[in-house]
């Protein structure tokens, strides 16, 4: 405390009263005056000799951060990244899936030779091995392509420019411009995105960024989006441009996710977390040629392996649990899984889903990448022999269980908007130190997802 004498205290109180009745200037007004003064002084005391290096970078910045070209350039780059990921992942995915099939045959043969009981074979091969193999075959190739590409953009110095472009939109939403960066991190992993929110200094704006991070699809959800887009929205599966149309479909979903981020940030800033956005300085680092080798190593070890290990660690118990639930029969003859799915079915139908899908999203809480394999396992129940090995087999299976393009779209939207995975929730708990906000982080997206699906289910004609 600073000790004031009585006349000083009186003066301060008087001034405070006065100030309360005077019109408050906006923070922007104050900041702009400071910036203008700084600009004037800098112009008077610094002379610039033209050099080619600076001009080249400034000209590039004019294009990449221009109000007109900035957004289209961003979209095109994103489509290129998605397209490379989709197209490039196809072949290695098939290869891995073939390898895992061979492995499964060998494993089954071993179990038969050892005269292992049937339930052990079911639990380990049909439950654990298949789920894990699916996760690796479906996730590893896109991740191994997506992460390096993303890290490459980061290394080039493009991401701060993205933040600069998006700043205007975030300001409109009353959020912090740096939320653009944490949102971009969320594309890799929402838990990482939540941790990245530490760069936002103001606690209010940090909370907005944390709560809305889950609306951009993380790498655990990309495979679901990509697979379903390829099957249902990519036009004919084997036509030459299916990759491109599927990429565009994923782009549209990503834009919906970003749009939701803005809308919910806007809403939070006007309800639960009122306040004005704080000003900040964003350094646009000079463009550098990326260090390709380092990018590859960093993205493979820091991200790909890290995310993959996490997914596998969760796929093992989830695969086991789902197999057990699908194979324990209750008195009536129905399995635990089908009973649970049936009880959820009524509500799920309102959303245009079915009980197995909704159940899979809850069972997939530890890791979103295992949602689809759980759905498949639920559908197959006893008929484990029909496990789909190719996308067209998967399509046949899903269509046989009543899926249409509309179902696929609603599942993708639910995946995009629903609650974050348990790792992210745990991270949110750690970062906010609040159970209440963690609960909000779970319930808010769930409510939004249900509302959106409910409305679309009524509005959309069957596709």
């Amino acid at each position, binding site marked *: 405390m*600073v000790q004031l004498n009585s006349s000083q205290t009186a003066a*301060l109180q008087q001034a*405070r009263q006065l*100030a309360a009745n*005077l019109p408050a200037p906006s923070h922007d*007004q104050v900041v702009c005056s*400071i910036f203008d*003064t700084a600009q004037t002084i800098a112009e008077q005391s610094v002379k610039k000799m033209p050099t080619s290096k600076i001009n080249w970078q400034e000209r590039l910045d004019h294009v990449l951060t221009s109000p007109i070209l900035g957004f289209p350039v961003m979209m095109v780059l994103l489509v290129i990244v998605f397209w490379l990921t989709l197209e490039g992942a196809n072949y290695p995915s098939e290869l891995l899936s073939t390898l895992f099939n061979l492995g499964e045959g060998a494993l089954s043969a071993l179990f038969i030779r050892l005269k292992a009981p049937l339930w052990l074979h079911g639990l380990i091969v049909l439950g654990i091995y298949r789920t894990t193999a699916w996760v690796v075959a479906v996730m590893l190739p896109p991740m191994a392509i997506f992460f390096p590409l993303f890290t490459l953009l980061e290394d080039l110095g493009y991401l701060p420019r993205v933040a600069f472009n998006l700043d205007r939109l975030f300001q409109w939403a009353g959020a912090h411009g740096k939320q653009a960066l944490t949102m971009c991190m969320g594309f890799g992993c929402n838990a990482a995105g939540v941790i990245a929110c530490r760069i936002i200094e103001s*606690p209010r704006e940090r909370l907005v960024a944390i709560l809305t991070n889950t609306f951009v699809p993380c790498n655990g959800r990309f495979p679901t989006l990509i697979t379903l887009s390829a099957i249902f929205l990519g036009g004919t599966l084997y036509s030459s441009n299916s990759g491109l149309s599927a990429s565009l479909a994923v782009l549209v979903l990503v834009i919906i996710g970003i749009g939701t981020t803005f809308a919910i940030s806007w809403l939070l800033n006007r309800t639960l977390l009122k306040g004005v956005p704080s000003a900040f300085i964003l350094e646009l680092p000079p463009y550098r040629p990326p260090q390709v080798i380092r990018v590859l190593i960093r993205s493979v070890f820091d991200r790909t392996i890290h995310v993959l290990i996490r997914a596998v660690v969760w796929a093992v118990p989830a695969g086991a649990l789902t197999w057990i639930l699908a194979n324990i029969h209750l008195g009536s003859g129905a399995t635990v899984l089908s009973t649970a799915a049936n009880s959820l079915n009524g509500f799920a139908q309102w959303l245009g889903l079915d009980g197995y899908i909704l159940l899979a999203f809850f069972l997939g809480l530890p890791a979103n990448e295992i949602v689809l394999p759980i759905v498949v396992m639920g559908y197959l129940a006893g008929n484990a022999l029909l496990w789909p090995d190719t996308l067209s087999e998967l399509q046949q299976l899903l269509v046989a269980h009543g899926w249409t393009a509309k179902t696929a779209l609603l599942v993708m939207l639910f995946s995009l908007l629903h609650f974050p995975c348990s790792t992210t929730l745990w991270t949110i708990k750690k970062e906010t130190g609040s159970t209440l906000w963690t609960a909000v982080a779970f319930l808010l997206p769930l409510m939004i997802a249900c509302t959106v699906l409910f409305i679309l289910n009524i509005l959309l004609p069957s596709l």
Partner: protein
Amino acid sequence: MNNLKHPIVALSGNPNTGKSTVFNALTGLNQHTGNWPGKTVTLAAGTFAWQNTTFTVVDLPGTYSLFANSPDEEVARDFILFELPDVTVVVVDATCLERNLNLVLQVLEITPKTVVCVNLMDEAQRQGLVVDTDKLATELGVPAIPCVARSGKGLAALKKAIFNVATGRIATSPRPIRYDPNIEIALAVLTKELSPLAPLLSPRWLALRLLEQDESILQHFLPEDKTSTSSLVMQHPSTTKKVAPWFS
């Protein structure tokens, strides 16, 4: 006023301006860290001698502004505001002076006893920038010393300027930031009202905060306001003792 036998120099600046290099170059090995009393913040401090006077340099967190948006900004601001350093040095990056001047202007609103250290002059030259520090000093109303801290260039001049400002040999007269006319009218009214507080802090600065409805600053003056701010605002120390703890 601090006893000039133990003058205190606050070192502020944007991140990535070579502030730490300046700190190391000024103090050499005479460094230690200490807690700012009452705060859970550790600041590095060091000493250097000039003209038989030993200066204590306190390295503040690197910040882009003093709006107290973040704990770092608040620490930097509160130190300059309440510890009343004899001189505040703002280290700026000569290659992006305009951005760095935002912080300088905000420091000047709080204290006129400021020296600007224009670092990375060699880098600026390489980029084809000619920084006229004399002109800059005239425009700002405080000394501006060109430096290349990495090679130690300009440090003697910096120490001399610090000494001169601390002892009052150089009278500084910062040019105030001109705000929009409607703000200036309101500021004039409030500044006059707050003039009894002038020995403690700049009435114009406080007037601006009050006008912005930034009531968090009041907790330092009015006891009943202590609990009104968010829990993230750190408790301010009692300012009963004014001697920096790094001497104890």
